[in-house]
């Protein structure tokens, strides 16, 4: 048990320090980008006070905007203050699933840039099943989710097949398939099948209530059943990677494909299967987002979930637990953006700057170690620092 904790500490230390350091630098940027703070530059005392106050207020706003807001609870129930937390969870849900799609690929030695495209295909398929058919509630939503997984699984599987049969690099193929998915979405929204009757804006009909993921904490909170789907999926992925024979093959190919090949493991099979499963995971993310939050397919269904997923997986060091935690962190940061703007006047974009800084520091373990004077025993294997075909 102690050993397990020790290895967790080792694995988590660098991401944690990167996180702290990013917030530190982020704070300085927030303060220095504020004209009021800068106006005080001539009197050092005043400058420092306003500098500190600005940073403090901003981080308070981030907390209030993502976890608990006393102002919302005031005069209402204590419970209402958790509205931001509910939003955080809603935002984290698709990130968990798409993040797993990237993390699992990493474990097989593949760099899945294509979560975005797979996410979109998942949403398209779920949307179609959701509004087209009229089925009993539980069956309907299950079928819609499965359709999303299957469509995106095929979309990811294409990448695996191309890599296994022709040696095409998955990074290039997935980037191209992301473009195809985005423009396919734009086109399909204008087709008769998908265009909402009596509407000229590119938006599909809402999925029927029987296909929607229920809001289980009442109508006031946006939190929906998707978070449980995401967490159960995370557990299944953990089992697959660490306990199953298939996961053993994945990890073997990822860690040393030569030795895996010599041991009779078919790398082509592993590449295809991994990409199919990863596609299905990202597709489930898209389906859950559509059936739980958006309810209607529109051109912005993908957001930047698929790309943030790469960041999330990197921050989580491609482990299942790490990816889930990182998804919650990113969900929280994104949720807090609006509050940050309305309370402190700090631009929403600063949240993205902090996210980028976290990843930057994760990718440069040597820098973080230097800053915090960490000795050698902490593993500095950075996935982001791996080579092109590493």
């Amino acid at each position: 048990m102690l050993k397990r904790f020790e290895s967790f500490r080792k694995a988590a230390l660098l991401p944690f320090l990167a996180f702290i350091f990013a917030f530190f630098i982020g704070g300085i940027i927030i303060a220095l980008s504020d004209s009021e703070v800068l106006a005080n530059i001539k009197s050092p005392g005043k400058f420092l006070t306003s500098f500190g106050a600005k940073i403090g207020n901003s981080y308070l706003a981030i907390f209030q905007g993502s976890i608990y807001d006393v102002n919302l609870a005031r005069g209402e129930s204590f419970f209402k203050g958790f509205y931001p937390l509910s939003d955080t969870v809603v935002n984290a849900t698709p990130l968990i699933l798409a993040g797993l799609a990237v993390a699992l690929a990493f474990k097989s030695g593949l760099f899945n840039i294509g979560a975005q495209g797979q996410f979109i295909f998942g949403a398209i398929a779920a949307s179609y099943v959701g509004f087209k058919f009229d089925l009993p509630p539980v069956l309907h939503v299950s079928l819609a989710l499965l359709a999303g997984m299957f469509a995106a699984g095929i979309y990811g599987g294409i990448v695996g097949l191309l890599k296994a049969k022709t040696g095409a690099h998955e990074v290039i193929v997935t980037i191209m398939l992301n473009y195809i998915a985005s423009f396919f979405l734009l086109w399909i929204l204008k087709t008769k099948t998908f265009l909402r009757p009596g509407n000229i804006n590119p938006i599909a009909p809402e999925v029927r209530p029987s296909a929607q993921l229920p809001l289980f904490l009442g109508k006031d909170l946006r939190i929906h059943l998707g978070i449980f789907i995401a967490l159960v999926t995370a557990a299944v992925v953990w089992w697959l990677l660490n306990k199953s024979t298939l996961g053993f093959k994945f990890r073997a190919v990822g860690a040393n494909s030569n030795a895996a090949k010599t041991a009779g493991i078919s790398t082509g099979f592993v590449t295809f299967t991994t990409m199919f499963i990863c596609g299905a995971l990202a597709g489930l993310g898209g389906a859950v987002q559509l059936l739980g939050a958006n309810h209607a397919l529109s051109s912005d269904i993908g957001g930047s979930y698929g790309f943030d997923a790469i960041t999330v997986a990197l921050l989580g060091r491609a482990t299942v637990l790490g990816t889930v935690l990182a998804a919650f962190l990113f969900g929280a940061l994104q949720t807090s953006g609006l509050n940050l703007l309305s309370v402190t006047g700090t631009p929403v974009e600063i949240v993205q700057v902090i996210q980028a800084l976290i990843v930057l520091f994760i990718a440069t373990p040597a820098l973080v170690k230097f800053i915090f004077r960490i000795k050698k025993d902490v593993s500095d294997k950075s996935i982001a620092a791996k080579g092109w075909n590493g």
Partner: protein
Amino acid sequence: MSLEIKGITKKFGALVANDSINLKVDNSEILAILGENGAGKSTLMNVVYGLLPADSGEILIDGKKVEINSPADALAAGIGMVHQHFMLVPVFTVAENIVLGHEQTQRGLLTLTEAKTKIKKISDEFKFEIDPDALIENLPVGVQQRVEIIRALMYDAKVLILDEPTAVLTPQETDELLSMMRILKSKGTSIIFITHKLREVKAVADQIAVIRRGKVVGSVDPSTSQEELASLMVGRAVDLEVDKVNSSPGATILKIDDLNIYDGSGRVIVSNLSFDIKSGEILAIAGVQGNGQSEIARAIMNLEAHVTGSIMVDGSEILGSTVHESIKSGIAFIPESRELDGLIGSFSIAENLILNIHDIEPFAKLGQLSKSAIIDNANERVKEFDIRTQSIDDSASSLSGGNKQKVVLARELSRNVKIVVASQPTRGLDVGSIEFVHERLLAERASGRAILLISTELDEVIALADRIAVIYRGEILGIVEPSVTREKLGLMMAGVK
């Protein structure tokens, strides 16, 4: 120039890699440092070369204390080092590699003329036969090594440290290196020669220091017998002679007929190869590295892509099926590079021990790995094969070379196999581990398995094989008895029938 090491101690955590070591090499002298893998030889040399800081002790040159904190300090003090793994840029020429870090410029442009002249001069003086304009990637390993030596000499190294220089060389190249060392010595260079090969030590050294577990356990002269040296090195009596009893080969198990192997661009690697191996027999393929023997082993495992002919195991054709089928048909495979092909460094020892049997009973049940079966198997194998490790959960990369090979052997030989294909099974191993591998292969022979041994080590081939097939440029020059002389075998390996 003389170099003296006084009381050098270097610790890594609790491990004492060097324990107050005293050594001295005189002008024009070859000091051999003999020791098993992990004895602390390389650590000591890295300290001397300024790559690692010592915890205590000092280094004296011509009786005067010098501070060496970096390789640059070492070079300035006249110490040069040739590493076991070469530090050369493959796509650069010899001259470009040698000037790297000391480039001379003329009006801002790189000029190599002076360097080339100097390289030619050194090359002629020591009979190195080096073309300064040759690309490194086109040169054989032995020549690349000479480039490293020239690099050290270019910067006026008076003491040359050679770290396991023969590990990567063929018998011929080794002999050439040894004679070069003698020439260097005669011209006034002192050499520290790190190795664990007894024959080489006896051939060139003026004095021999034996290191075991970080301590100098003996300073002896080269007249000491190989047996004595080996037992000093290992710390117990070592039997260098292999006890091979006569075997009575049974039925033919592996039959290879008209095998041709091509590389991706259609070039012939192996042509018209035919041989068979009976149960209880060791057939060795002897040859200089790079003559197609590695590909033969890989072809038997279906790891080569372009192969024609026939490979029959117990009467059924396996060529053209998958690696998985080769494994299932009863072939144990000990690959040439255990780090690259035999093991997954980041996986635990227990996981490596089931690498190619992870999806069969009892290790897998309904697609799920059975932890208890895997642990039981690992504990058994660790005990049976004497794998020295703290825990079966430690990563394979944490093991020493000998123990890594034991993991591969344990996995492959414990399966239900009829044939053992061993490709360079003792490469880079220390005496104790080599002894272990040899005994194990003979035990497999005694138990009736058919063994294909691919080796570049003449002694090994002669000691173990029942028949020796000599390969040269992808063709078998002839199959001889192990009673053949070393000289005859060496000549055949060089292509003389």
